[in-house]
């Protein structure tokens, strides 16, 4: 028998990045909100605690934080001549599940879109004219520009991954010069994480060739940080398990 529950003003389906941000923003409105999530509830403590989170069999091999395909999966094929078949176990890509969604296995790097990414049609026309666009190419703008979104990019960065230790050029011509839009304001900027000797080697080599390398944006904290919502982020321990496996 279906149980009829009290109606709510807003129902959000899925409590991942998108649903979570929506719920948080709407929570201030006074409207009643119900969020539906198919997976398990999770929190930093105890679900991501040391040392059990360093269990490569459970998480990297058996994908315990990811979608349970015995309950819901998808079919796929690699070209139109094949017959689509179900994905019977996770493999090449890993959809998330549960509270936090893909956020629980996020590696801490999300590049914001460049201005061109928002308006590929407009900016292609401005630079090269219509003749470079094939007639059957469905090139469209998204309807919002980088300038319109920049404030929100900043808000998300400060709230969710807070500190971007590195910097990312928003303007193509600024890439590599660190004169960037969207760089962390000085008051919340953290020293860059320079732990990776590969990065240091690459930086040295790139500079010697006359390029202007810069650290990529990363939400792996080099210092403790509390975001404007009061959520505390611990510092990165350089455990090496970001990508699931420390010996891969």
């Amino acid at each position, binding site marked *: 028998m279906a149980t009829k529950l009290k109606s709510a003003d807003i129902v959000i389906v899925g409590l991942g990045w998108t649903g979570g941000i929506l719920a948080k923003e709407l929570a201030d409105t006074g409207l009643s909100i119900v969020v539906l999530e198919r997976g398990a509830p999770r929190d930093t403590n105890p679900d991501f605690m040391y*040392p059990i989170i360093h269990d490569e069999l459970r998480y990297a*091999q058996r994908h315990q934080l990811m979608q349970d395909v015995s309950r819901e999966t998808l079919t*796929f094929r690699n070209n139109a001549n094949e017959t689509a078949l179900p994905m019977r176990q996770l493999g090449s890509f890993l959809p998330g599940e549960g509270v936090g969604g893909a956020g629980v296995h996020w590696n801490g790097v999300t590049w914001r879109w460049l201005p061109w990414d928002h308006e590929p049609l407009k900016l292609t026309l401005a630079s090269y004219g219509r003749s470079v666009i094939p007639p059957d190419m469905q090139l469209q703008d998204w309807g919002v520009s980088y300038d319109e979104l920049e404030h929100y990019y900043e808000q998300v960065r400060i709230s969710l991954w807070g500190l971007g230790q590195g910097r990312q050029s928003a303007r193509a011509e600024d890439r590599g010069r660190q004169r960037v839009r969207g760089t962390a304001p000085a008051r919340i900027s953290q020293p860059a994480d320079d732990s990776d000797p590969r990065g240091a080697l690459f930086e040295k080599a790139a500079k010697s060739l006359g390029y202007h390398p810069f650290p990529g944006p990363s939400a792996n904290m080099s210092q403790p940080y509390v975001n404007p919502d009061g959520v505390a982020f611990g510092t990165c321990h350089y455990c090496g398990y970001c990508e699931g496996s420390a010996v891969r």
Partner: protein
Amino acid sequence: MADDEGVRRRDVLKGLGVTGAVAGLVATTAPPAVQEAKAQPAAPHVHAVTRDGQAADTFRFFTPLEAAVVVALVDTLIPKDDVGPGGVEVGVPIFIDRELAGAYGRGARMYLDGPFGQGTPQQGYQLPLPPADLYRIGIADLNAWCVKTRGGKAFDQLSPADRTAALKAVEAGQAEFAQVPARSFFSVLLQNTMEGYFADPMYGGNRNNAVWKMIGFPGAIGMYGDVIEKYRNKRYDVEPKSIQDLS
């Protein structure tokens, strides 16, 4: 080989009564070898088997005959040598046994319903069998094929050199398995063998962190914030710690 495997796969589906329908259990229509495998007590049962003259482990999923084959398979895939320990001595057969006796063996996180089809290699595993059934049938197939082509001997009765040759044929898809594609069995076996060898010792393999010691991996420690500068470009030589060591 793909076509041959496809034919056999359809035979499997037919044999298991699952063509075009929901994957069933190995049932009354199963071919003879399946019945033979299922005729042995599945679980739980307890057997103390002996290897290398030592009192050995208690298998929960594998029958004694199956356990002997799995021990021989693991020993062939990862023999003890001057680089490091063998898979058997660090407990890989017990690891596989525990995995198959539990949720993994039942296919707890696998989609095992239809539609079924031959699929391309890129479409991955497409059998209707959870790992426990794949092993039970695959071991029976392997032994039947060995008996037929290797002078009446089951896999574990072969010499080490013959085991290697037989397993190479299985890996290459050249072994004629009656019910499951030989390569599907091999790839799951190899995957599980590596998992048991390298995973945390709490799962039964990698005993005493021996494999982590071999490769110089510190194990589950993963707390390097305070030492990363000190060891920059230097070898971090510490005793590996397992999750239980740290708990």
